[in-house]
C-alpha cells in the first residue's frame, strides 16, 4: 500500500514483500504518508483505552480516600517550646511521620502557623523567607503566603498542607494535618 510505488510496494532491506515484514515496520514506516496516517480502528482503540484508564483512575482516587479515612487521626506530637521561636523565625519539624517535613513559623507575638514543607507543584521543599513575606519554593520560583499557606505566585495552584497546632503551657503541639485543595 505504498504511495511511492503503487505497483510494486515499498522496498525493504531484506527484499521480502510488505506482508512478510515484522509488525514493528508498520508502526515505524519510513514513508511520510503512512507515518501520518491514523487508522479509524487505532483511533477508536486509543479513545477506548484512554477512557478506561480514566475510569480506573477514579476508582483509585476513591480507594485512596477510603484508606486515608481508615487510618484515623494522626497522633498528637510535641513540636517545640514557644519561647524557642522568635517572632519571624521558622523551625523545621517532622509530622505526622518522620518523613513528613513541616515548618513551624511565628508570624507575630500571638500567631503561630505550621505548614507541610512539600510544595504543591512538584513536592520540592519550600524555604521560609518571612522577611520577604513568603514561603519560597526554589525549584520553579513558587511562593506561598505565610499567613494562610495559599499560593501567591509561580506554578503551584493548591495551598500547602496545614498542620493544626495547639499551645499548652508554652509548648506547641501538632494535633492534625489539614489537606486542602483550595
Amino acid at each position, binding site marked *: 500500500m505504498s*504511495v*511511492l*510505488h503503487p505497483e510494486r510496494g*515499498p*522496498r*525493504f*532491506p531484506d527484499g521480502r514483500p510488505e506482508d512478510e515484514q515484522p509488525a514493528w515496520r508498520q508502526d*515505524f514506516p*519510513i*514513508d*511520510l*504518508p503512512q*507515518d501520518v496516517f491514523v487508522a479509524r480502528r487505532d483511533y477508536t482503540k486509543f479513545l477506548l483505552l484512554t477512557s478506561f484508564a480514566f475510569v480506573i483512575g477514579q476508582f483509585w482516587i476513591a480507594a485512596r480516600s477510603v484508606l486515608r479515612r481508615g487510618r484515623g487521626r494522626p497522633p498528637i506530637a510535641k513540636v517545640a517550646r514557644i519561647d524557642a521561636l522568635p517572632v519571624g523565625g521558622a523551625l523545621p519539624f517532622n509530622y505526622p511521620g518522620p518523613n513528613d517535613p513541616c515548618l513551624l513559623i511565628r508570624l507575630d507575638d500571638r500567631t503561630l502557623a505550621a505548614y507541610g514543607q512539600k510544595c504543591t507543584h512538584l513536592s520540592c521543599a519550600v524555604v521560609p523567607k518571612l522577611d520577604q513575606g513568603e514561603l519560597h519554593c526554589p525549584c520553579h520560583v513558587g511562593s506561598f503566603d505565610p499567613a494562610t499557606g495559599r499560593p501567591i505566585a509561580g506554578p503551584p495552584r493548591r495551598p500547602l498542607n496545614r498542620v493544626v497546632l495547639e499551645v499548652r503551657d508554652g509548648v506547641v503541639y501538632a494535633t492534625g494535618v489539614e489537606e486542602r485543595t483550595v
Partner: protein
Amino acid sequence: MVPESHLFFVDPSRCIGCQACVHACSECDTHRGHSMIQLDVVDRGRTTQTVPVVCMHCDSPTCAEVCPADAIKRTADGVVQSARKPRCIACNNCVLACPFGVPKMNVGFELMMKCDMCYDRTSAGLKPMCATVCPSGALAFGTLERMEIDRPRSEPMNKFQFGRQEITTKVRWMAPRGRTIEHLDVTSAMDEPLAADAPSQSQGFVSVDALLDAMHLEGND
C-alpha cells in the same frame, strides 16, 4: 510534490570542482552557512577529479532504516527528507550507515542535516539550487527524454551494489554508455593484502585502488 517526470542527474565526469554548488547550497535560508552538498576529491595525488555528492534518495533508504528515533522520513514523491529536529537524537547511526556518505552530523545543532533535493524548490516546480548554478552540467534536473537527447554518450543508472546490499535510487548517476558496470569493493581498502592473495573471494568486485589505477591508465591513453 516533485513531478514524477523530473529526475536529478549527477555526472561526475563533467564536474570541474568549482564549488559553485556548495556555495549556492549554503546560501539557502533554511540552512544558511551549511552546505548540504559535498564536493569530494577522488584521489588528490593522482587526479583533479572531483565528485559532487547529493543525497541519492534511495528506494529503501538505509539512513531511515537505521534511525532509532524515527526522524528520517520519505515523502510520497520519493524524496528522503532531512532529519526532523524534534525527533533527531544526534546518534550518528545514519552518518555511519549511508553507503554514499551523505548524512552529516551537525554537532552544534545536535541534528543530522542532509540534502533534501531542495524540497521547498522542487516541490514548487523549480530546480534544485545546485543544478541551477552548475556551470558544466554535472548536476542537472530534468526529464529523462531531454537528458537522452542532450547526452547520448552517457547512460543514467540508479542501481548500486555495496557488498551484498543492492540499492536503487531516485537520483540518476551518469556513466559512459555501454560500459560494463563495475562494482566497487569498498571494504578492500581495509584488508588489502588479503584481497590481493585471494582474488576469487572478491566475486566480481573491483578494489578501489585497482579501479583508480585503471582510470589513471585510461586517462593517459
